[in-house]
């Protein structure tokens, strides 16, 4: 065999070997999330367990830099103190350190008495040592979970109710310990449906809605019926709730606030009923608006849309409304009383 033919055979077998090996690793172990994919929505969705009932996103940096935020910031002076206190305690400056965050609410398999358990995954710049020291000061302990430090805080009767883990530099998961552990699993192993480990990106219904929300810098999407069934609502009230399956809220905060509230009804009849209810509220709102030009402006922006099973209500809160709000707030609010630190709490 000629040398170049031998090289060709070796190269070809090498490509096949590497490919099959990689595939086998993916099949049996799973891939680190993002190894080959870049799906819809923020990357942090890959660490949210698939059974999430609500997923929310906020582009904190964008919101913090928005005109609305600047106006409110000037109008509400005590926030500065609260923000500084939060920074001293956690080492996190909300205004500059967090870029964006993703939050979720998942069902708690251990009980039906709670609406669910939550987790927040934030990307930004964090002082890991300071945050860990603060949590340990408050009684938390450090566990090793698959090579990651898990700072677990025992709260009440639930021994593993709250934890924090820096999954990678600049990425922190905070929330229910089981959820944080799953987030670490997903971060390290990626989606591996064969082993029962899957992220919310595998939920096609939810991801289709997420894709439609990406124009907003804040949004939330959730399974309304799942939430309602776990919310322990009064019997009569629960029966009167509209038959909604999915809901979503998307907003873009900048000079003002522009947003859409969308609901997916069980069928077209339920969607029509819901539209009638919303129309009724809109009419009532217009009656109540009186001569307030800002509120009238806002109500005029309301637009009811959607087709088939979808009901959508878009709205715009113009900058003038925020101007009016800021003028209503007294210039010198009393500072919030400082809560004395108690060791162990």
């Amino acid at each position, binding site marked *: *065999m*000629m040398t*170049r*033919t031998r090289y*060709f*055979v070796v190269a*070809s*077998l090498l*490509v*096949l070997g590497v*490919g*099959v090996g*990689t*595939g*086998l690793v*993916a*099949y049996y172990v*799973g*891939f680190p999330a993002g190894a*080959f*994919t*870049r*799906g*819809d929505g923020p990357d942090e969705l890959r660490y949210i367990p698939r059974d999430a009932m609500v997923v929310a996103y906020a582009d904190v940096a964008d919101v913090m830099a928005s005109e609305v935020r600047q106006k409110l910031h000037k109008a509400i002076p005590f926030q500065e103190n609260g923000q500084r206190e939060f920074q001293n305690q956690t080492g996190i400056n909300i205004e500059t350190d967090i870029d964006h965050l993703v939050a979720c609410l998942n069902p708690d398999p251990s009980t039906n008495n709670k609406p669910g358990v939550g987790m927040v995954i934030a990307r930004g710049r964090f002082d890991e040592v300071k945050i860990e020291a603060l949590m340990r000061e408050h009684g938390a302990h450090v566990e090793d979970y698959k090579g990651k430090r898990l700072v677990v805080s025992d709260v009440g009767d639930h021994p593993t109710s709250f934890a924090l883990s820096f999954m990678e530099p600049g990425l922190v998961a905070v929330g229910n310990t089981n959820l944080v552990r799953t987030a670490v699993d997903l971060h390290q192993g*990626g*989606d*591996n*449906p*064969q082993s029962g480990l899957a992220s919310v*990106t*595998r939920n*096609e219904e939810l*991801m289709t809605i997420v*894709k439609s929300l*990406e124009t907003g810098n804040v949004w939330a999407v959730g399974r309304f019926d799942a939430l309602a069934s776990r919310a322990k609502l009064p019997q009569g009230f629960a029966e009167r709730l509209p038959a909604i399956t999915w809901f979503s809220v998307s907003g873009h905060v900048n000079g003002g606030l522009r947003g859409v509230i969308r609901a997916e009804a069980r069928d077209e009849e339920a969607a029509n009923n819901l539209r009638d209810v919303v129309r009724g509220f809109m009419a009532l709102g217009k009656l109540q608006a009186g001569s307030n030009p800002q509120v009238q402006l806002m109500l005029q922006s309301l637009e009811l849309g959607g087709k088939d099973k979808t009901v959508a209500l878009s709205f715009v809160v113009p900058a003038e409304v925020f101007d009016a709000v800021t003028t209503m707030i007294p210039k010198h609010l009393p500072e919030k009383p400082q809560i004395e630190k108690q060791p162990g709490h």
Partner: protein
Amino acid sequence: MSAPRTAPTLLGSAARILDLSLGQMLWSRRSIFLGLLLGGPVLLAIALRVVDTLYRSGFQINGARAGGAAIFGMMIWLLYIRFIVPVLGVFYGTSLIADEVDDKTITYLFTRPIPRSAVLLGKYLAYVVCTTLLVLPSVMLVFFLVVSTGGGSVAAAFPSLLRDFAMLAIGLAAYGAVFALVGTRIKRPLIVGLVFAFGWEPAVLLFPGYLKRLTVAYYMQALVTHEMPQDSAVSLLMQVFREVPSVATSLLALAVITGVTLWLAGRAVEHKEYVLEQ
């Protein structure tokens, strides 16, 4: 005094011919065509990947975002099964002996003290090795580039890739054997091969009846795990009249097709008198 020489066995001789022919097959002008043929799907996969990376909406079919596994399945059907595998079979299979005849080098091989059928078998094995080592890496690259787009999972789709590998290797072997027979028996094998692969096979698959059992595609399609694309009226008709034999039947039929056609081709080579045109 030296030991008396023993005649080499059929397999031993075929292995020597395989060694000789593999290099010739790989570094011939036909390789450029082969490279283009197999580079096309990889380039297409790169383009799809770029579209998926640059645009949030990804690659869409009828306004809906297509999943990576579905696109990969479509590429396997349209590019590999319906085009690349039959084309490779036709071009390489028909030329196994015909090229040696055209180049007037067949005499050198036939005057060796080896069975004539070993020449055919060795060349056929070289064809199988050459095409398999080119087609499978191409499919592998396409798989990793395409499957993970549109929220697809490499882990979930991986078992189907292994089945695709097996199916393509079996398909290449079967088509190669059929066209090797055509190449040894018929005067203008390339034209006949093209008519068989792109005339006879698609045509009889469109209609109900037993004629489709006289094709390789009928048995090969039964081994495909991906959904048949409905990209045209022809595909739709194929879907309507699609009879799928069981996997065991298909494997047995393809093994019989490969074995019988290869044996017939070997017999033809053993008995045919090749007259070299001066």
